[in-house]
C-alpha cells in the first residue's frame, strides 16, 4: 500500500470537481507519456500533459493547496489536500512513475560525446537552481574554464534534465499516468491560512 497527496487550491479545478466521484484525470490523457513530456510537465508546467502530479509529502501538497488557491483559504472556505491510496496490485490502466528514476535512466553515460546533464559551475551553482528566488545570483556566476581555455564569458550550463530532477525532488513528486479511480481517494483534509494579514 502506498499513500500520496495532492493539493487543490480554492476555486481550482479539483476544488470545484470532486475526485471522490470522478477520480483524477490528466489535462491531456491522450498524449503519449514520453520522458520528454514528463520533463516538460515538471520543469515547464505544460498543460498539454498526460500526467497527474502527486506528492509523497503532505506538507508539499498542503502548500500547493494553500498557495495555489485563487482566493486565500479560510476556515469557512478551505483548500483541500486529497489523500490517495494505491493497493498492490495497482488499479488497471494506471502507472505510477518516479520522475527522478525516469529521467535518470535516459541520461547518457560519461564517455558520451555531447552536452552533459551536469552543470559546469561552482559547487554553489546548485543552490541557485534549488532556490532561485533567494540564491539566484549563483546561477549568474561566470563559468570558470582552465587557463588559456577561456571562451565567451557565460553562466554555467543548466540542463532541462538537471532542472527537472531538482524540481521533482523539491516537491517529492510522483507522477501517475492514467485515470486514478475515485475509490483510491480515501481522505480529504480541509486546510486554510491561519489569520492572514495583508501588509
Amino acid at each position, binding site marked *: 500500500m502506498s499513500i500520496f497527496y495532492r493539493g487543490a*487550491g480554492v476555486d481550482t479545478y479539483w476544488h470545484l470537481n470532486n475526485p471522490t466521484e470522478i477520480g483524477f484525470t490528466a489535462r491531456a490523457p491522450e498524449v503519449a507519456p514520453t520522458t520528454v513530456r514528463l520533463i516538460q510537465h515538471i520543469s515547464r508546467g505544460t498543460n498539454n500533459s498526460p500526467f497527474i502530479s502527486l506528492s509523497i509529502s503532505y506538507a508539499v501538497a498542503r502548500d500547493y493547496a494553500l498557495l495555489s488557491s485563487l482566493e486565500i483559504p479560510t476556515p469557512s472556505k478551505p483548500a483541500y489536500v486529497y489523500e490517495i491510496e494505491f493497493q498492490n496490485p495497482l488499479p488497471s490502466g494506471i502507472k505510477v512513475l518516479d520522475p527522478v528514476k525516469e529521467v535518470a535512466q535516459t541520461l547518457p553515460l560519461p564517455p558520451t560525446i555531447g552536452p552533459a546533464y551536469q552543470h559546469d559551475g561552482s559547487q554553489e551553482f546548485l543552490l541557485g537552481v534549488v532556490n532561485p528566488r533567494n540564491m539566484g545570483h549563483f546561477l549568474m556566476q561566470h563559468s570558470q574554464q582552465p587557463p588559456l581555455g577561456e571562451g565567451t564569458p557565460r553562466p554555467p550550463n543548466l540542463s532541462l534534465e538537471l532542472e527537472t530532477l531538482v524540481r521533482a525532488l523539491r516537491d517529492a513528486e510522483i507522477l501517475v499516468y492514467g485515470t486514478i479511480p475515485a475509490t483510491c481517494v480515501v481522505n480529504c483534509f480541509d486546510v486554510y491560512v491561519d489569520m492572514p494579514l495583508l501588509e
Partner: protein
Amino acid sequence: MKHIVDNVNKLELTFKTIDLEGRVPSTDAIEFLSVEEPYREGRRYSPFVRVRYALNGVKQDKAFPMDVDKGIFLSIDDDALEEKLRKIAPKIVEILNSIPEIGQVYDQTWSVDKEIDFKVPISNNPDIVSVHGPLLGLYYNWIKDDGILEIKGKPSRQTSGEFTIIVKKRNQETKKSVSFEII
C-alpha cells in the same frame, strides 16, 4: 467521503505586497496590479506568490497563483488564458528577482561595553548596503560573494534602541529595523 479539518498544522502567514502597476504589460482585459508574497515569521515562505489583477478595470478578489521557481502560473484551467499568462510570467519573475532581500534578523539583547558581531544574509546582490543606528564604532562589511552582511560595534549607553539595515538595487529599496536591548 468525510472532510477532515486540519487544525493541527497551523500555518500563519502574512503577505508582502509588491506593486506591479505599469511595470508589466496588460493582456487584453487583464491589468496586473501587484504581487503578494507569503511570509512566515519574517521570512519568505514557499516559491509561490499571488498575482492580483484587474479585469476590464475592476480589481478582482481572486488572484493568479504563480510558482516563481518555475516561472509559471498555476491552476489556470483556461488554455487560452494560460497561453497569454505564460508570456507575462518571466517579466514578473524578473521584477521579483530585482528586489534585494534582508534575511532573518532577530531582535538583539546585548551587554554594555561588549562588542557585538553578527551576520545577516542578504539576497539578490544589492548595489548598496548600509547600516544606521546608535552603535559606537559601527562597522559593517558587505561580503558580496557570500551574500553576508557582517555588523560590528558596541552598544552605546542607551538601554534600548533600534538600528536599520538598508539595501538598494536600482530603484528598489528594502529596509529592516532591528530592536536591541542592553542588559
